[in-house]
């Protein structure tokens, strides 16, 4: 049997060896031999054509987060590859496994500034876990094998393979490698140091006011069940990071929602007052902690993470535990004694009640405010859907008012904060989970950044539900201007198109919603429709997100929502 294959063929056949079923991409000159191989040999891999390569990277990201598999995106050289960079940086910050394959000019033209040449290996260096430039076809199969291994193991992340055009055209006898040899790569998938686990257990057993902070690492390790068992066994309240939402059911009595800059106030009080803090699979970044030196000042901190570089990166850690979240929680469970913390839980309940009084939904107003939409969406879906949010005020409100109970049910750009993430990431999620109800929740600003991907929605016949939270502003930036720049709204009022007409131009049914009493019914109409549907929620324009911790300030110094009907930033 002749096993001679071209570089283009090798790319597709290697992807098949890795179990890849779908790729997101857009062709161009330097990647054409690879695209041609797909058409010529009819490989059983579905190619989703995107309208812009940024969309391809976000789709691979959404696909990976929703399914737990490695997402794959493809682009051509130069601008095709540089358009991927925002998506790769997004995935890198949020530890999403992606393999990106880019075409590069032929090796004979490398470094000569030829048409559509860019130093993609150099450009992608700081936003990928690893990358490759392939100038010899004999390096190609191993690079692909290694790329998938590196992307999905340890702390996941994006890996880029830049393949010169002549490499795609060259031929060799192909056999997919069975083993890899990476002497410098240690993904830390071993069990944690037993002594560190014992120290952690001792601290938890002695704690009077313990709190767990669960991050996305819990979800990546599929340790949700163990997290719950630990919390219930020792009656420890559980907060999450933004990306940790869904790792612990928000409706669980021990859930204290999520903390940080716009987290629930009672959660922040608990974090500031706790005496032992167990962080599992969370980076403890500035958005969660506020000013590092003021975070959880009374707490002994136990930090569980499989990336040793996270230990002590931001905070002083009393007990670092380098290890996989699942293995660590399993090791910790038998050592942690059954416990109750009635006084502590009562204190948190009192804080929660106070927070409830300030809830904007408890205020009497006829105006349609975004939190009302989020709560209605939660009721209508009963939480049984995947929500993909963009970045800004709506993102915070979604996280506050939609109580996620299902793992991986919120996909959001937490680390990089990439506006334009929602629509393409939701496309990726829906492609990966065709039977899932997938909602895009985006602001009017961010939605327009990647809006052309609506054509991908229609092309792929995806039944995506889209909710635009339209307040006519770059809302979160406007909020900062309200609070820190004396309400000077430079560059934040938006000129918006008629989103209903935009949707209709793509053949997507849509309706605008302007009043409270239409919200629930409109959501149900979208749900009932067997196809994509867009809702343009025209919400009260000046509502801001509370609480709010000013950057560089302590979480103890939250700006709270005014206790009045005045929705503008007043205090």
């Amino acid at each position, binding site marked *: 049997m002749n096993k001679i294959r071209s570089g283009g063929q090798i790319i597709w056949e290697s992807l098949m060896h890795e179990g890849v079923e779908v790729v997101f991409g857009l062709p161009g000159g330097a990647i054409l031999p690879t695209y041609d191989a797909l058409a010529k040999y009819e490989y059983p891999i579905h190619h989703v054509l995107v309208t812009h390569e940024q969309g391809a990277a976000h789709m691979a990201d959404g696909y990976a987060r929703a399914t737990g598999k490695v997402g794959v995106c493809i682009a051509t050289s130069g601008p095709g590859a540089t358009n991927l960079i925002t998506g790769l940086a997004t995935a890198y910050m949020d530890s999403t496994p992606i393999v990106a394959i880019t075409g590069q000019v032929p090796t004979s033209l490398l470094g000569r500034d030829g048409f559509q040449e860019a130093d993609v290996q150099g450009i992608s260096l*700081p936003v990928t876990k690893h990358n490759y430039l392939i100038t010899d076809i004999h390096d190609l199969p191993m690079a692909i094998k290694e790329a998938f291994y590196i992307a999905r193991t340890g702390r996941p992340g994006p890996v880029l393979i830049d393949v010169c055009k002549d490499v795609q055209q060259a031929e060799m006898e192909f056999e997919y490698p069975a083993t890899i040899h*990476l*002497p410098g790569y*240690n993904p830390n998938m071993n069990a944690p140091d037993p002594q560190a686990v014992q120290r952690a257990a001792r601290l938890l057993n002695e704690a009077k006011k313990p709190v767990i902070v669960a991050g996305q690492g819990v979800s990546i390790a599929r340790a949700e069940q163990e997290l719950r068992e630990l919390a219930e066994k020792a009656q420890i309240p559980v907060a999450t990071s933004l990306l940790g939402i869904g790792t612990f059911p928000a409706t669980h009595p021990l859930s204290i929602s999520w903390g940080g800059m716009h987290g629930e106030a009672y959660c922040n009080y608990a974090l500031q007052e706790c005496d032992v803090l167990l962080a599992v699979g969370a980076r403890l970044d500035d958005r969660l902690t506020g000013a590092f*030196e003021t975070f959880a000042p009374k707490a002994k901190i136990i930090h569980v993470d499989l990336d040793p*570089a996270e230990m*002590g990166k931001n*905070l*002083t850690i009393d007990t670092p535990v380098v290890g996989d979240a699942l293995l660590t929680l399993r090791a910790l469970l038998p050592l942690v004694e059954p416990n109750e913390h009635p006084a502590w839980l009562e204190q948190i309940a009192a804080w929660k009640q106070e927070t409830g009084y300030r809830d904007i939904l408890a205020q009497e107003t006829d105006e349609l405010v975004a939190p009302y939409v989020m709560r209605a969406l939660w009721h209508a879906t009963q939480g049984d859907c995947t929500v993909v949010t963009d970045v800004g005020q709506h993102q915070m409100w979604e996280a506050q008012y939609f109580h996620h109970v299902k793992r991986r049910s919120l996909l959001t750009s937490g680390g990089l904060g990439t506006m334009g993430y929602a629509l393409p990431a939701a496309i990726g999620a829906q492609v990966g989970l065709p039977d899932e109800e997938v909602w895009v929740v985006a602001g009017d600003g961010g939605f327009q950044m990647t809006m052309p991907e609506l054509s991908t929605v229609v092309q792929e016949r995806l039944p995506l539900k889209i909710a635009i939270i339209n307040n006519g502003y770059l809302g979160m930036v406007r909020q900062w201007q309200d609070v820190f720049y004396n309400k000077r709204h430079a560059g934040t009022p938006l000129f918006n198109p008629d989103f209903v007409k935009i949707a209709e131009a793509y053949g997507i049914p849509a309706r605008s919603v302007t009043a409270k009493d239409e919200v629930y019914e409109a959501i149900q109409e979208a749900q009932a429709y067997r196809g994509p549907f867009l809702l343009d929620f025209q919400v009260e324009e000046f509502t801001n997100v509370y609480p709010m911790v000013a950057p560089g300030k302590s979480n103890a110094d939250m700006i709270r929502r005014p206790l009045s009907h005045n929705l503008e930033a007043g205090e």
Partner: protein
Amino acid sequence: MTTNGSLKRHTMIAWMEDKPGVLNRVAGLFRRRNFNIESLAVGHSETPGISRMTFVVRGTDRDMRQVQTQLNKLVNVTAIQDVTYEPTVVREMALIKVTATNENRADIIQLASIFRASIVDVDLESLIIQVVGPEDRVNSLIGLLQNFGIQEMVRTGRVAMVRGARTEAAGINGETAVSAHPHHKNGQY
């Protein structure tokens, strides 16, 4: 807390696969993570395919932990060791081109011999002096030679090797050599 002790110079040795772009990866990481690199020297190690880098970095103990763990995340870096608190042989080489006249040439040559430096090139109006030694010896010689007029100078940067038989992992088996600094032993990060 963002600080952990005072700023100190640390000498680190890193072993890495000898592949295109590896130096770029390391340099890029230093820049991106804002590490304060004072010198860097790289060349072949005793193992084919493995390069050895000695670099000097300034920072707190916490910074050093970050340097080690972040560098170790680079796929091509096979090991890293902080040898600051180890007994080491530390050397640097410099080539110094000094203005020399008939009157002072003998003085310069005598000075060089005191520092066990060698004269590697002689010209009517200049000398090239090669000196090898700990940095402070190189610094002293340079300080004295400035009186004669230094036309050109090149220094290699510090290279270091731990004394005695090799006991710790050193770059060939993927193990990470762990710093011997006492602060890193009791779990305090």
